[in-house]
């Protein structure tokens, strides 16, 4: 009996590797989905399709970065979608008036402002992030509507740089990767190797303990939500470059999927646990899943049902494999 306890079976070793690298099962799942797609629609796995998938997964993954970062501290950013929309709408409507660079500054400024207000509320006034960001989301939507009325007749134009990123390709891959790859590397590195990244995990794991260690958590939260606003703003710029049609609800539809991407990617909504690489894979999975369901000729109701059921199955399986309890 003692002997069986001492030896580690190969299966449990695999289990451990997987547990320590939770991205692996996610990547496997992604490939399984692609394989399934290729069976259903032979020849789909071509360069163009891969490019398109990545193109639409990028903004989702970026917005999901807002969720991942805030969820690590036990928060959430429900205003991210609105912030992205604000930034996209502002840049498209202001470019004809004040020129690209200035419009970009103003657009990002608006998004950062939303983040700052969130940071103030969450960090200093201790409002629950869900309520705070929901509230600022509402406020920003209202402001955007009011703003919209003054720019109905100014036309819209998207700075060429973002059209280049959003619609252009290099070697078949979308140009958006020029923005996204450095961004992703920065976030992944930042979470693992910077003090700020560590503090996000720490605050989510036990805010009291960070206080005890001399962390003023309001500083971290303030910086975090402002950063989240900035990321959302950049996402909005990239997204409007991809869609090329500013609207008052442009990125709002990315909101729930961005939370889903983070959750599928293994980020705990209670804080303290998660990785951005997981989130990226989560975003890819959602995008591929979307395509899969679009191409299946089934009623819309069944489509959504399947979408939910698959997410359910993935998370259930994932939680089991990685043994989170």
């Amino acid at each position, binding site marked *: 009996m003692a002997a069986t306890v001492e030896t580690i079976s190969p299966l449990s070793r695999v289990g451990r590797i997987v547990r320590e690298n939770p991205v692996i099962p996610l990547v496997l799942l992604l490939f399984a989905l692609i394989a399934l797609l290729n069976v259903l629609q032979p020849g789909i796995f071509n360069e163009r399709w891969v490019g398109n998938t990545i193109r639409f997964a990028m903004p989702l993954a970026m917005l999901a970065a807002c969720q991942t970062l805030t969820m690590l501290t036990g928060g959430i950013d429900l205003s991210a979608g609105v912030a992205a929309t604000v930034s996209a709408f502002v840049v498209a409507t202001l470019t004809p008036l004040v020129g690209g660079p200035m419009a970009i500054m103003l657009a990002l400024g608006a998004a950062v402002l939303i983040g700052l207000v969130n940071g103030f509320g969450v960090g200093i006034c201790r409002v629950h992030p869900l309520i705070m960001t929901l509230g600022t989301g509402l406020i920003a939507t209202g402001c955007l509507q009011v703003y919209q009325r003054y720019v109905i007749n100014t036309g819209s134009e998207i700075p060429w740089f973002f059209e280049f990123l959003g619609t252009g390709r290099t070697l078949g891959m979308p140009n958006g990767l020029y923005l996204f790859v450095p961004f992703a590397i920065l976030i992944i590195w930042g979470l693992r190797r910077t003090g700020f990244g560590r503090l996000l995990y720490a605050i989510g794991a036990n805010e009291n303990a960070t206080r005890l260690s001399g962390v003023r958590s309001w500083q971290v939260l303030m910086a975090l939500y402002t950063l989240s606003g900035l990321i959302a703003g950049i996402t909005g710029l990239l997204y409007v470059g991809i869609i090329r049609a500013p609207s008052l609800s442009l990125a709002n539809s990315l909101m729930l999927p961005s939370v889903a991407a983070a959750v599928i990617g293994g980020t705990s*909504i209670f804080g303290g646990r998660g990785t951005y690489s997981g989130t990226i894979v989560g975003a890819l999975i959602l995008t591929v899943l979307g395509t899969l369901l679009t191409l299946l000729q089934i009623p819309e109701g069944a489509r959504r049902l399947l979408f*939910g059921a698959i997410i359910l199955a993935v998370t259930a399986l994932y939680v089991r494999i990685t043994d989170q309890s």
Partner: protein
Amino acid sequence: MTRVLARYGWSLGLLAILAILLVATRLIQPNFGASGLDSLARAALPFAFATVGMGIVVIAGGIDLSIASIMAVAGVVAALLMHQMGDANAGWVVLIVLTRVPDIVVTLAMLFVWEGVALLILNAPGGAAAPWLRELVVGAVTIPGLPPELTSWLPRALVVLIAFVVIFWLPLRRSKLGLSIYAIGSDQHAAFRSGVPIGLTRVAAYGFAGLFAALGGLSITLSTGIGEPIAGPYLMASVAAVVLGGVALTGGKGGLLGPIIAVFILRTLRLDLTLLSVDPNVTTIIEGTIMVAVVMAGGLLAMRGRR
């Protein structure tokens, strides 16, 4: 006394806000009266049911993102069954069927699933509600033997709401199951060690949430007379009301009285903004600001209390 104040202080504060808002409504619109209260109560009904459902789950330390979609499913199923079979009782079958069993993160996925189910059942608004059931939530209460002037101020919708909450929640709150719901929300580890069956309790909490969400969906069908397969704005509204009502999103704290008052506050606020004919976009801004401000003020008060 101070203990009572400490425990119910938040609800009392909300009640005061509600009273002020109602007085303000009366000042803005001197004609505001029984019919106004009635429509307020009817408007609040689905929100209140959703909030009660959400509240129970949140107290148990979870969150139910699928609450609005469940309401849609309940609504369309009820509308369809009543339409086809002309049998109002079918509405109640729904409640039992929908008392379902998901888990915490799972509810996000369930949101999509229920959305899909609602669309599969009814791909466009339709169906019908049984007239006698619709009467149930319309108008004022009439109690035989009492002069109607006395009861004309009491909307039926409010009575229905109170009846359901009293029937289900009050006994539950004091029961062992109710305590267990608080326990798993407060500290799951400690609850497990105290012998609370975590899984079963969670199932029960989500079950009750499903029940109330179904009631909410039913109440929508009763007020609109049809079933709508697209979920309304009840998810975020219910979360907001739960938090405004003093239930901690971390679980274990608070009751359902506060959230229900919060629902009425939010509805009255909207009424007042309409009466004042405020620019609609500004309305959104005001609603967001007030929501944040109330919670912020609560946080600051709590912080000063601790000092």
